[in-house]
C-alpha cells in the first residue's frame, strides 16, 4: 500500500470520511496480531480465520463510533476478544472444539531433529489445550500479556479493568495455567 507510513489514527479518520482503501492499511497492519489472538483463544485455524475476518468487518462497520480515546489496536483487540468469546461459547455448546494441530507451529519452530520436533509439537499442543481449558477471563489475560506482549495498562483498557486488577488476575491466571501444565514441565524442559 502506498500509505503504509500513515498512523492508525489518520487511517481511521480517512475511513470515517469514506476512504475505504485506508482501511486496508489497518487490516494489513493488525491482521497477524488479531489472527493470533483469536487463534490462541479458539485453538482452531479455520475458525480463527473466519472470526478474524468478522472482527475486521465489525470494526469497519462501527468505525464511526471510534472516537480515538484509545489506541486503534486496543479497540480492535476488544472487538477480537468479544468475537472470540462468542465463538468459543458456541463451539463449547456444540462440543465441536478440538485441539488444533495443523503443523503451523512445527514449521515456525524451525526444529531440525524429527524426534525433538515431535516433542515440541506435543508440548505446544498441551499448552494450547491448557489455554483452552482455562476460564475465558484467565485465557484472555494470558494471551494478551504473555502471547501478545500487551502492556499492563493496555490490557486494562482492553478488558476494561484497572491495572491493579490486571496484576492480580494475571497472577491468578498463571497459577491456574501452571496447575494445568505441571505434568508436562519435565518433558518441556527436556525438549528445550
Amino acid at each position, binding site marked *: 500500500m502506498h500509505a503504509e507510513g500513515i498512523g492508525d489514527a489518520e487511517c481511521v479518520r480517512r475511513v470515517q470520511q469514506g476512504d*475505504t482503501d485506508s482501511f486496508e492499511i489497518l487490516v494489513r497492519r493488525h491482521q497477524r496480531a488479531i489472527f493470533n489472538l483469536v487463534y490462541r483463544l479458539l485453538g482452531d485455524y479455520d475458525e480463527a480465520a473466519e472470526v478474524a475476518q468478522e472482527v475486521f468487518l465489525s470494526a469497519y462497520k462501527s468505525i464511526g463510533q471510534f472516537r480515538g480515546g484509545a489506541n486503534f489496536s486496543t479497540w480492535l483487540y476488544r472487538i477480537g476478544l468479544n468475537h472470540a468469546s462468542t465463538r468459543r461459547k458456541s463451539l463449547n455448546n456444540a462440543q465441536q472444539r478440538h485441539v488444533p494441530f495443523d503443523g503451523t507451529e512445527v514449521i515456525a519452530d524451525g526444529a531440525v531433529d524429527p524426534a525433538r520436533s515431535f516433542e515440541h509439537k506435543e508440548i505446544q499442543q498441551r499448552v494450547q489445550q491448557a489455554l483452552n481449558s482455562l476460564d475465558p477471563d484467565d485465557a484472555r489475560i494470558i494471551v494478551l500479556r504473555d502471547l501478545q506482549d500487551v502492556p499492563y495498562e493496555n490490557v486494562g483498557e482492553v478488558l476494561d479493568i484497572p491495572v491493579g486488577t490486571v496484576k492480580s488476575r494475571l497472577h491468578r491466571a498463571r497459577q491456574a495455567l501452571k496447575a494445568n501444565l505441571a505434568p508436562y514441565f519435565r518433558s518441556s524442559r527436556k525438549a528445550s
Partner: protein
Amino acid sequence: MNCQEVQKYLSEFLDGNLEVERSQRVSDHLAACAPCSEEMASLAECQRLVSGLPKVEPPVGFSNRVMAHVREAARKQSLWGRLFLPLRIKIPVQATAVVLIAVLAAFIYQKELRQRESVITVEPEKSPGREDKRDELTAEQARAGESIPDVTNLPIKEFKDSAQLQEAQPLAKSGNQNKGIPGRQPTPTTPSEDQVGSLATLAPAPLQEKSSATNEAASPSLEQSSPAAETRAEAPPLQPPRPEKDNVSKDVALERESLSYAETREKSVASSLDALRSGAVAGVALPSDHDLAIRLKDPARDDKATADRLETDFAQSERPSSLPENESKNLDRARQQAIQTGQVQTIWITIARNQYELFKKGLAELGSIEMEPSTPAKTDALSKSSDQLRIKIMIFPPPASGSPGPSHP
C-alpha cells in the same frame, strides 16, 4: 518479606514490573527460600511456554477477502448514506423507532376509526328474512360477536350483558301482567333509546323511540325474547302509550294516505332515511310504522293459490310502489315457514304509503288480521317526510299448528 508477600509479587517480578527496591527484596527472599524459588521457576516456565507458542500467519489472501467484504459493506452503507448523509442528519436508532411506532399507532387508530364508522351499515335485504333466527337470544349474541368486532364501543343496548338483561326481565314481566298479549313475540330488533339517539346523529330528522303499550308488553316466553326487546322494556318511553282502538288506527292510516305528494320532493333526504329504515343498523332493524298480526288460515284451506293470488293482486296493482317483488317473496317465505314450523314469523315490509289499505286487503286473504295498533308506531318527522311505510307483520301459524296466537285487544 515473608513467603506470602513474595507469592503475591511473583507475577510482577517475573514481568519486571516491580519497583527496584521491592524487586530486590523479592529476589533476596527467592535466593533464601527453596519453595518460593520453585514456585517462581514454575511460573517462569509457564510464561515461557505460552510466549514460546509460534506466531501463526493468517491464511493467504486474508486481507483481500476482508477488504472484499468491507467494500461490499461500504456499497450497502453508501445506499443508505445517499439518503441521509448528504443532509448530514444522523438519526439514532431510538429516534427512528419512536417515529415508526408513532406512525404505526396513527395508522392503527385511523383504521380503528374507519372500522367503527363502517359498523353502521345498511342491510336492506337481510334483516326481514332472518327474523326467525334473531328470536333466539343465543343466536343473536353469537352473531353480534361475529359481525361486530368491537362490541364494547357500540352505543347499542342490544349487546348488553346478561346481567343487564336480567334486570330488564322484571320490568317486561310487569308490563305483561297489565296488558300482555299471550304468544306475542317481542320485537326482536327494535333499537333502544340510545340507538335511536345514535342514529339521529346520522339522520337529518331525529328518530323517536317507538313506545307503544303493546311493544312494551313482553312475551311470556322471555327466554326467546331478544336483548333489544328487553332493553326496550328497560328504556323509558319517549311518547305516551298509544290507545289500542282499531278505529283510531284506521283514522291515522287514512291521515297518512292523505299526506300530500309534495313531500316526495324531499326525496334526497328521504331516500337516505329510507335506506336506514329499510335495513338494519349493525344487525338491528328500525322501528316500523305499522304493526300487523295475522293468523294464517287453516293449511287445508290455505293452499298455495292464496299466496299466489295475493302476489298476483299486488302485481296487477302497483307492485313497484306498493309491494316489490322481493318483499312479496319474503312474505310468502315467512308464511310458508310459519306453516311448516308452527312458530310465529316476523317480517318487515316496506310499501308505498298510499298502498297500505290495498296491502292490508291482500294480506287479509292469507288469514285474519288479528291485531293492528290503533295508531302508527311512528309519527315523527322521518315518517312524515317519506312516502314509504314500514310495516312489521307477525305471521301466526294456523290454529291447527298449536301456536297460541294473538289475543284480540
